[in-house]
């Protein structure tokens, strides 16, 4: 599994998504083909690191490996270029986590493979 995540490290560390070379549309997660104009001329592009909360939930029953964090916030965030990312929101007062809240990207431990496996890092967000 570590390799599956390693492959995405620039996506995870820097929110590198896609930009269409023909119509300029931007996407996160990355795409193979432009969802606006259909072009296959796609390049990597770093997304804005700030945005706002479109909707959120507080998850009480998480996936295996995330138990220690529960309950934690997950949100669909609209980045400042209009693309959307699903992410945890951490280090933020409860009252600040709401629809429309401004957030910024940070890098955190995303998954840890037990006591001896690798640590995978990735984006999370916090309210500003």
């Amino acid at each position: 599994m570590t390799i599956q995540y390693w492959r995405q490290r620039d996506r995870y560390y820097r929110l590198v998504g896609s930009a269409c070379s023909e119509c300029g549309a931007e996407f996160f997660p990355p795409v193979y083909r432009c969802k606006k104009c259909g072009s296959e001329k796609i390049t990597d592009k770093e997304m804005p690191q700030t945005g706002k909360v479109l909707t959120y939930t507080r998850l009480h029953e998480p996936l295996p490996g995330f138990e220690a964090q529960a309950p934690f916030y997950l949100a669909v965030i609209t980045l400042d270029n209009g693309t959307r990312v699903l992410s945890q929101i951490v280090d933020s007062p409860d009252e600040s986590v709401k629809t429309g809240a401004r957030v910024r990207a940070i890098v955190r431990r995303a998954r840890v493979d037990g006591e001896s496996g690798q640590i995978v890092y990735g984006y999370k967000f916090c309210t500003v």
Partner: protein
Amino acid sequence: MHLMQSKERAAILGYGAYVPYYRLPTTEIAKVWKGGGSGPNVEKAVASMDEDTVTMAIEAGREAVKMSGVQSLGAVFVGTESKPYAVKPTSTMVAQALGQHHTLAADLEFACKAGTEAMQVVTGLVGSGMIEAGLAIGMDTAQGRPGDDLEYTAASGGAAYVIGRRGKDAVAVIDCSTSFVSDTGDFWRRAHERYPRHLSRFTGEPAYFYHIENSVKTLFKETGHKPSDFKYAVFHQPNPRFPVEVASRLGFTMDQIKTGLLNPMIGNTYAGSSPIGLAAVLDEARPGDKILMASFGSGAGSDAFCIEVLEGIEKSRGVNPTVKSMLERGTKIDYSTYSKFRDKLHK
């Protein structure tokens, strides 16, 4: 001559600090282990359960790079004693997150002074012309054994510095530094041990004071500087008392050290301690101000720096959050939450 000074002076082009969001009042620790009272410091900064030296170094590194405007880093050095991996460099993960690949990347370990020696190494690489600019980070998620005196102060945080050729936007020039070391076993952590061990009174006179006094006095002697030449002084802060005492012995006043004295509010951030103290000073300093910074690392040694603030400092204001603003953005936790965050509970 023991002074380390590059022919072409290197300068701080950008800096960024990091203090985690969570604070543990030391009364919480005392409640559990002494039935009341507090530690020497008021609070300590605690990394969350999904933070480590890598994530914190990335945050501080990003701020430093942003302020510097530097596109390409010739070096990424992370000084820390809390590497997430015993074998797998912290610095490559930081470099990747910063989009840097053609770079000399390494982790440095020297207890609490690995951050300042990272600054010296990058200064040397820049001064020699080998690189245009590099990143030096001092960052730790220090841990004390539950119930140990160290638990009151062992904290998380640090700062990052982009050091490069002195251009018109440079924040401060690193004029020179000294290092003084000896074989002194005041504090150590054996391989495979979870928590460090330390000797009690031995950590003071023969360790902290002896090495800092030597590095600073050497700096004074060889530059001709005296304490009154400096607007600010930053000393390594294992607790609130030692830096005040060493300042007094060396002829510095409380006024000179108070800006960089963060231990009462965040604890001892180990390799991050002197660098983040310097960041707090730079947040307030004016062009022309001279700063003395002297770190201490157990084992043992001290690096003393003479830094002069430049005009570029004014343009750097407001680019990054100040240390003060990071101290204000935080929330208190109790001992049980801290235990969960720092992996002291085993299921």
